[in-house]
């Protein structure tokens, strides 16, 4: 019982100030959000365009998936000398520790699933519907914007949601390279053998992940057309039904 009492006290005593959990949550959300937004800005247009044209997509998916095989921890380690060098070279990056390497690792983590799901979602749009649209006089660009993209949206958003949750969980590692965030409590807790701090940090990360998941689910329900049916918003369709022959990316998140 003593432990839980300590835990409760910890939350009451450590919410404010520069090392308080409010600030730490904000730091955690900040780097996660920037990484996810950056990944979406890069991967979504690229995945959508390659999915639309159907050219070179599979090759890019393969390359991108090499990235997925690399552990975020390793990327973090690799990113560190790179960001330190960047901070020395580029005027607007003043610190090669902390935010920059964390961002690089999370960006690398987020890019492949967002890209793959976008690409696969667009490829998975019923070819009959695409041809009907072409037959009515859609140009390529409008076809992508008005037909393929909205139809692929459930798959794309699922990709973004799962990615965001993963990024939030992984942002914890930022503490290893001098970033703040909730990982601080876990890393510092280990260093000082402070179990209460470790558990408190872990609980906060878990809560933030669950919150992220819930928020994205809400967004999905809001932006996906009701015509696509509720069942498609909560689960990713099975590859067998969604993909054409020969295009069977195992990479699709489930």
């Amino acid at each position, binding site marked *: 019982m003593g432990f839980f009492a300590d835990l409760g006290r910890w939350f009451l005593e450590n919410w404010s100030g520069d090392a308080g959990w409010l600030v730490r949550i904000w730091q955690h959300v900040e780097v996660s959000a920037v990484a996810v937004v950056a990944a979406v800005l890069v991967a979504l247009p690229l995945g959508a365009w390659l999915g639309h044209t159907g050219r070179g997509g599979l090759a890019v998916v393969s390359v991108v998936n090499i990235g997925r095989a690399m552990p975020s921890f390793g990327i973090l380690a690799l990113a560190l000398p790179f960001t330190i060098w960047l901070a020395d070279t580029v005027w607007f990056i003043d610190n090669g520790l902390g935010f920059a390497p964390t961002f690089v690792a999370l960006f690398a983590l987020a890019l492949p699933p967002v890209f793959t799901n976008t690409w696969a979602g667009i490829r998975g749009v019923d070819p*009959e*519907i695409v*041809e*009907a*649209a*072409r*037959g*009515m*006089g*859609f*140009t390529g660009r*409008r076809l992508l914007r008005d*037909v393929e993209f*909205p*139809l692929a949206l459930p798959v794309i958003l699922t990709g973004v949601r799962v990615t965001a949750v993963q990024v939030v969980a992984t942002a914890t590692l930022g503490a290893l390279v001098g970033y703040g965030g909730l990982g601080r409590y876990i890393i510092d807790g280990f260093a000082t053998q402070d179990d209460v701090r470790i558990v408190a940090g872990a609980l906060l990360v878990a809560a933030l992940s669950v919150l992220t998941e819930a928020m994205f689910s809400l967004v999905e329900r809001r932006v996906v*057309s*009701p*015509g*696509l*049916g509720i069942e498609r918003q909560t689960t990713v369709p099975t590859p067998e039904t969604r993909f054409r022959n020969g295009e069977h990316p195992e990479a699709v998140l489930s």
Partner: protein
Amino acid sequence: MPEPMISLEGVTKVFPGSAAPAVDNLTLEVAAGEVAVLVGHSGCGKTTTLKMINRLIDPTSGRITVAGEDVMTVPAPELRRRIGYVIQQIGLFPHRTIADNIATVPRLLGWDRTRIDERTDELIALVDLDPALRNRYPRELSGGQRQRAGVARALAADPPVLLMDEPFGAVDPIVRSRLQDELLDLQRRLHKTIVLVTHDIDEAIKLGDRVAILQVGGVLAQHDSPAAILRDPAGPFVEEFLGSDRGIKRLSLMPIRDVPLEPGPVVSRAADPEEARAAMARYGVDWFGILDDGNLEGWAWAADLEQGPIASLPARSFRVRLGYDDSLRDALDTVITSHTGVAPVFDGERFVGMLTAEAISRELAR
């Protein structure tokens, strides 16, 4: 013949990686306001032919014109917005409401909102869709309703030409038959130039003003009116394609009006029994019809003549009667199931003559 609305001149399509052409040197003209049906087994190139008209597939060689304009000289999206397109699974956009689906081409053409809304309402009424479905999504509609919405969408910008690829393939036979009737009814009002692809010869016969039968490899086996094809099939392929009940199919296209009718064993109320007996003998039957002032009142048995003068006989009413515009297909059914082998034909209420099974078979042999 006036300028055809659609013309294919020596059109060939060879798909990359395939030695045999999918469509081979096809020449075909479709007149304005006509329903042309392309029919054949799968792999005969009928869908390929259709898709070359709106350039979803580009021909390898040959020339296709729509309204006198070479389709290759028009940017494809622009061309397609002028041609209505209906496909088998209808291809309605699942993420858009029925109204938005119908408004697809007007939106592409940049019509203003009011005009689009008015046109959408007009089309929903035209294809007989329940206006309550306006804001529903395709998955909430039945197959027949979706098909109507698909036709409405194709007609939205009032294109002179409509391409339909197995438009009734996805609905059950009863609904299909009703939708076919509706299409014919719609066509009588709109006079579009329609090219329709089907594998169903009965559908082709029912809908087509002219039917083009294609053989595997996109070779035109015959192109003519359904009646002419059924009467005079060009070769064994067409004959086999038409099926063994070709005669019956022909009958469905012929109205009774076109067949010379017999007066039948009919006498007037004022006639004497000898006249009635002579009439019966002429037709080899044991009954006669009774005419009163040109009206066929009914009939009586030969034995009834014993009971008194014809003028006083009670007229038995005919259990079968045919309309002048009924098809011979329906008439045959009536005639062979009536034990006398004949049926009276009426033009409205006016008796016009008797139709016999022999007359029908004589007509088929012509």
